[in-house]
């Protein structure tokens, strides 16, 4: 059985409709109206032990809501979740003992206590044996470089420091699963890089199953073999990043620098199976489709007609691909990828 199984999961929030204006507050009291927000609308997937998944989706897609249901914070409206064989909200304590959660937006630590004291308290909350606690603390102090702020109250920590503290706190009890909701939000380049290194190490050496949500495509590119894309509460893609690149990223770009010593080329370049999409002086961008021609062929054509100084091939940016998917997600959800 898979480590995590989710079947036809729904979560609907009932939100009170607010009446506007001065009398609105009073009207809201007497005449309450609700409307439903279908935050998660029939999602199914399963996760095997040791996987590392990235979950993408535009704002309000339902990613955080899904994670909260997997953790047992929210009770699903319908559908089934099993984490380690338990339904999280029914057997919350049994499940959370084996999972770690980091919400990038909000700390899990005691605000007024020094980091080390928070960690120490969590040791008792999770009943981590002293020996194991020392080992883990030692490892995380090194891996996450906690020492400079170990004795500072959490409220004084910078965002990046706090995030490292939160990570350590979520991992002290050796969870088998780690959920990260936007773990790299607000981190600088170096900090992001270190965070990713850390997660990779964790997954490889400790076998921790990781599910993360993010808006940073690089997180997924560098960490996750498998990708979930959620939009409007529906799972619109479940598969590898390569597959999505092959399916949607068929357009590549050849960038050429023309040698214009013997006079400039006027107008767009004219080569078969490619079209110029941009020009900047002697530099031209030619878009071509994998299905129509190969890069080698195209280069041969261009070189035969024009004098070139330099050239490069640009792979489609994953950002652009994902953006396209978000933009017409309703279209592709009916197709088979």
């Amino acid at each position, binding site marked *: 059985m898979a480590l995590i199984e989710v*079947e*036809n999961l*729904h979560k609907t*929030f009932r939100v009170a409709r607010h009446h506007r204006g001065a009398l609105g507050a009073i009207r809201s009291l007497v005449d309450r109206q609700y409307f439903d927000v279908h935050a998660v609308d*029939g999602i*199914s997937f399963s996760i095997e*032990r040791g996987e590392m998944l990235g979950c993408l989706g535009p704002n309000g897609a339902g990613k955080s809501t899904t994670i*909260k249901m997997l*953790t047992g*914070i*929210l009770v699903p409206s*319908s559908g*089934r979740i*099993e984490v*380690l*064989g*338990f*339904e999280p*909200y*029914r057997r*919350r*304590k*049994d*499940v*959370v*003992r*084996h999972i770690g*959660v980091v*919400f990038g*937006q*909000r700390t*899990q630590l005691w605000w*007024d*206590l020094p980091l080390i004291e928070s960690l120490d*308290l969590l040791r*008792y*909350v*999770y*009943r*981590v*044996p*002293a*020996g*194991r606690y020392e*080992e883990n603390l030692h490892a995380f102090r090194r891996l996450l470089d906690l020492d400079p702020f170990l004795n500072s*109250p959490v409220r004084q920590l910078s965002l990046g420091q706090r995030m490292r503290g939160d990570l350590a706190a979520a991992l002290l009890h*050796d969870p*088998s699963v780690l959920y990260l909701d936007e773990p790299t939000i607000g981190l600088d380049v170096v900090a992001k890089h270190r965070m990713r290194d850390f997660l990779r190490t964790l997954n490889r*050496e*400790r*076998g921790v199953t990781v599910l993360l949500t993010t808006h940073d495509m690089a997180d997924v590119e560098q960490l996750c073999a498998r990708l979930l894309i959620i939009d409007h509460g*529906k*799972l*619109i893609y*479940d*598969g590898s990043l390569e597959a999505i690149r092959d399916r949607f990223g068929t357009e590549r770009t050849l960038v050429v620098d023309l040698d214009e010593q013997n006079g400039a080329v006027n107008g767009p370049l004219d080569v078969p199976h490619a079209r110029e999409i941009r020009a900047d002086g002697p530099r031209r961008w030619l878009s071509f489709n994998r299905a129509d021609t190969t890069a080698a062929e195209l280069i041969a054509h261009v070189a035969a007609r024009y004098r070139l100084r330099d050239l490069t091939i640009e792979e489609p940016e994953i950002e652009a691909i994902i953006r396209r998917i978000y933009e017409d997600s309703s279209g592709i*959800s*009916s*197709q*088979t990828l």
Partner: protein
Amino acid sequence: MVRVSDDRASGGVTGRRAKDKGVQAKHPVSDPLALSPSQGGAAGPATGSGRAETDAGTFACAQDKGRNAGHADTGFAVRHRSFVPFAPASTGRHALHLWLAEAQVHAGLYRRLIGAQIRSQMQYKVSFVLRMLGSFAGNLIDFGAIAVLFNRIPALAGWSLPEVALLYGLSAVAFSIAELFAAALDNFAEYVESGSFDRVLTRPIGALFQVITEDFALRRLGRLSQGVLVFVVALGLLDVDWTWDKGLIMAVAIGSGAVIFFSIFVLGAAYCFWTIQGREAANIFTYGGDFMSSYPLDIYHGWLRRFVTFVLPLAFISYYPALYVLGRPDPLGLPGWVRLLSPLAALGMALLAWAGWTIGVRHYQSTGS
């Protein structure tokens, strides 16, 4: 491939129920442990799946060893994780053992968590001392007002000043004990609104337990000491022939009263899962309840008296125990044994509070960001 779920019909309530049965069947051994928030229930999936794994196999083993070796050092009476799934079905005695061990663990945890809170409160020593003095003085003035009242009239609905002081003292002591523990519930609406409650639900201990460990209102010791003072003075002034049963009734009344007040605090907090106005609603019953049970019920209207006797059992905090001790007649004309029912009233309120809380937690909606 894309998986778009279309079997919505099967995801309904019936589908869920059927599934539950499946889960239970799969883990029959861990079910007795559902009673206690123990390690045991979780040991099933953890060790089972942990060992089956090849990649992290060595790690999982090391982890298990570490756990067993470390038990002595945790300071808790924790049972061996790996043994529990194979434990025989729990007998009554066994269950009691588990329960006691859990209680011990929670007491230790409470001390630790509260200790940390108090340490951080103590960072502001001066403010702490001032607030404590302020609360002591404020409450003393409060009682002074009653004393002044008695200067004008000799008795209140037939109750003398020392008798009213007994009611007042009982109620104040019970209330301030409850308040000491329930202080964190005061801000619970904000806690729910801000989504801080998420954090509580990600940890393997009781949610209510965690919330109340967020604050231990040492500053309210002022109120407690004032209550004790009034109570002791009342005992000194009263002309009561003290027998052991009367002493016991007083002690039980304080305990039961604290439980009743605490339960009302919890119900008020639970109400916050539905609406942010929970706090005001709770205040009516907590502070209002303290006020009501500080005076003889005789001064209130008949329906109100019946309400606090049969519906919200505030009368059992101070009034009925006081009737017993003072040997006064019951204006509602209930039989004598009714005066002994404080613990039962407390139990009822505690169960109600627990149910309300549990339903509330299920209702928790978190926040959108």
